């Protein structure tokens, strides 16, 4: 076991996969400038800087992937993805199907997002749900350093386009990462804390907030289970449903905007498939329908904090006591 940051865990994953498979290459804005160790080991043909032009970066990745390469592209900040939407959604996401399966698009699109740097709404926008909505794509957004490494390796090996979102508040926080060839399968959630009374489903930085909330709730006699989705598409329905069937209560927590967010999908899945297990309505604790602000105070207030999660759980528990 080693203690490294998610940023370095990703670098390690990429280096290991580039060593393992000569078809893997990486390019993007400042990739060769910032990841000198990759340039030193793999050279400037496989590790490239690009113009600041997200459309052509993503398009080039899609074209290269269809022809047998396995590109990883770094588009820096998630809002920049909007300039790459055509290549990701219309080409990489659809041309496997529209060509009758003649081509596949094994590529990874890496971006950062989330509160923590005060960069404001054009650099901080958790728009992962937009890609969950689009067919043909997979989406991951890990919370632990070990999962950053394991999911990056799995994403590079996957034969589908994978959107890899890095919560920038987590990027430089060290965590334990296995030394060996650590793979985390795409599509599998993790129960990171077991509990009996309520299920907290989350991903990225708010998993940590859920863990803090669970600890506070324990002091109040409420036992919370925390599920870290890790992969947003395909969603691990089985793990979520099993947990809700056990606890009977669900609170979904994410930093992304509330409307049509991943939380809405989780709530719908549970409503459709485990309604009979619910002892209380489903609750969501999410970002607002507003762009992210830069001011530290406003930025932090837009993220579901442990207190808000505790309050949401209390409402469910107290509501039930009131009606009992």
């Amino acid at each position, binding site marked *: 076991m080693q203690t490294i940051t998610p940023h370095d865990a990703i670098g390690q994953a990429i280096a290991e996969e580039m060593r393992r498979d*000569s*078809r893997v*290459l990486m390019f993007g804005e400042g990739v060769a400038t910032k990841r000198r160790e990759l340039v030193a080991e793999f050279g400037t*043909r496989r590790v*490239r800087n*690009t*113009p600041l*032009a997200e*459309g*052509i970066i*993503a*398009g*080039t*990745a*899609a*074209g*290269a*992937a*269809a*022809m*047998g*390469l396995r*590109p990883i592209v770094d588009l820096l900040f998630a809002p920049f993805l909007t300039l790459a939407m*055509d*290549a990701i959604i*219309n*080409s990489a996401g659809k*041309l*496997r*199907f*529209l*060509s*009758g*399966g*003649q*081509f*596949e698009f*094994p590529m990874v699109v890496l971006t950062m997002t989330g509160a923590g740097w005060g960069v404001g709404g054009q650099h901080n926008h958790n728009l992962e749900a937009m890609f969950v909505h689009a*067919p*043909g794509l*997979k989406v991951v957004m890990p919370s632990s350093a070990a999962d950053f490494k394991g999911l990056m390796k799995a994403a590079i090996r*996957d*034969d*589908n386009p994978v959107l890899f979102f890095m919560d920038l508040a987590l990027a430089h926080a060290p965590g334990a990462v296995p030394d060996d060839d650590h793979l985390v399968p795409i599509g599998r959630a993790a129960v990171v804390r077991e509990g009996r009374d309520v299920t907290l489903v989350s991903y990225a930085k708010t998993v940590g907030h859920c863990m803090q909330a669970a600890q506070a709730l324990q002091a109040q006699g409420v036992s919370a289970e925390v599920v870290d989705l890790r992969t947003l598409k395909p969603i691990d329905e089985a793990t979520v449903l099993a947990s809700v069937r056990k606890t009977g209560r669900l609170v979904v927590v994410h930093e992304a905007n509330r409307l049509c967010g991943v939380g809405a999908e989780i709530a719908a899945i549970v409503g459709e498939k485990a309604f009979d297990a619910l002892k209380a309505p489903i609750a969501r604790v999410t970002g607002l329908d507003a762009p992210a602000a830069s001011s530290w105070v406003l930025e932090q207030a837009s993220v579901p904090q442990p207190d808000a999660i505790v309050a949401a759980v209390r409402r469910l528990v107290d509501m039930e006591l009131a009606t009992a």
Partner: protein
Amino acid sequence: MTHPTEPSQRLSMLESMMLIRAHEERLASLATPTSPGTCTAVGQEAAAVGVVRALQPRDRILTNHRSAGHLLARGADAGRLMAEVMGRADGYCKGKSGSLHISAEELGVVLTSTIVGGELSLAPGVALAQTMGQQEPGGITAVFFGDGAACEGIFHESINLAVTWRLPVLYVCENNQWQAYVRRDETMPVEHVADWVRGHRIESRTVDGNDVEAVHEAALEAAEVIRATGRPYFLELTTYRTRGHFEPDDQAYVDAGELAAWKSRDPIVLMTERLLRQGVAGHGEIAHLQQRVAATIDAALAFAQNSPWPDLRELTTDVYA
């Protein structure tokens, strides 16, 4: 102008243009407001045939929503193409593409995007794979697009990357004077897209896109330059879309005089007259080509109409690997 090509090859180029014309006219004649329509490239056959004939088997092609010419010139089976347009199981893409996104890996027509400019975004990656050992060495990537796509920002992004990364891309701009329902001169201050690319330091050339032999010569030269230097090349073909944007289309928005002037320079008429004038072919031979093409299209249509509809399970196959 000299024509070093063998007489049989010149006749074959004419026949290829006739086949494309017959294929598209037949599909257009079948289009109704409720049946699958098509975007034709009628009037632009010389561009497709002249360029595609200059390519080698190891080369790769990306095309767009007016793709029938590029596919047929590359040797696509007209029956499977028609089946695809009609949404049948025997189409090149199992009927999932329709007319708009047809690709055929077996022919090297590798990706088709109908997002205007989408093909330009994919082309550098295809060429990159050619330079990194994922495709047969020495191949180039030909990407077909129009003056409409040249108005997209991705056009400049694509050329800039291909130039700076030294990618073997042949940019083929079919400047057909129409951007869907909008005249080119409404949207561009210059007549030629080539005027826009000079600042990118890419070698470029503009030729008469209705003269199949001029196109062919220019494309051969362009491909040679790309193979010799490893650098991209920009070839602009001046032509005209003589049918509407999307069938059925009454072309009420088209100036009749302008259309008539371009039709008098129809690429098939030009080539036919030249071959007759030069004694390469007689009227009987031309008539024979037309009959053969018509028979091919009749058979293709029958094949397509007899092809089954896709199984409904195809709705969710090929979405994920």
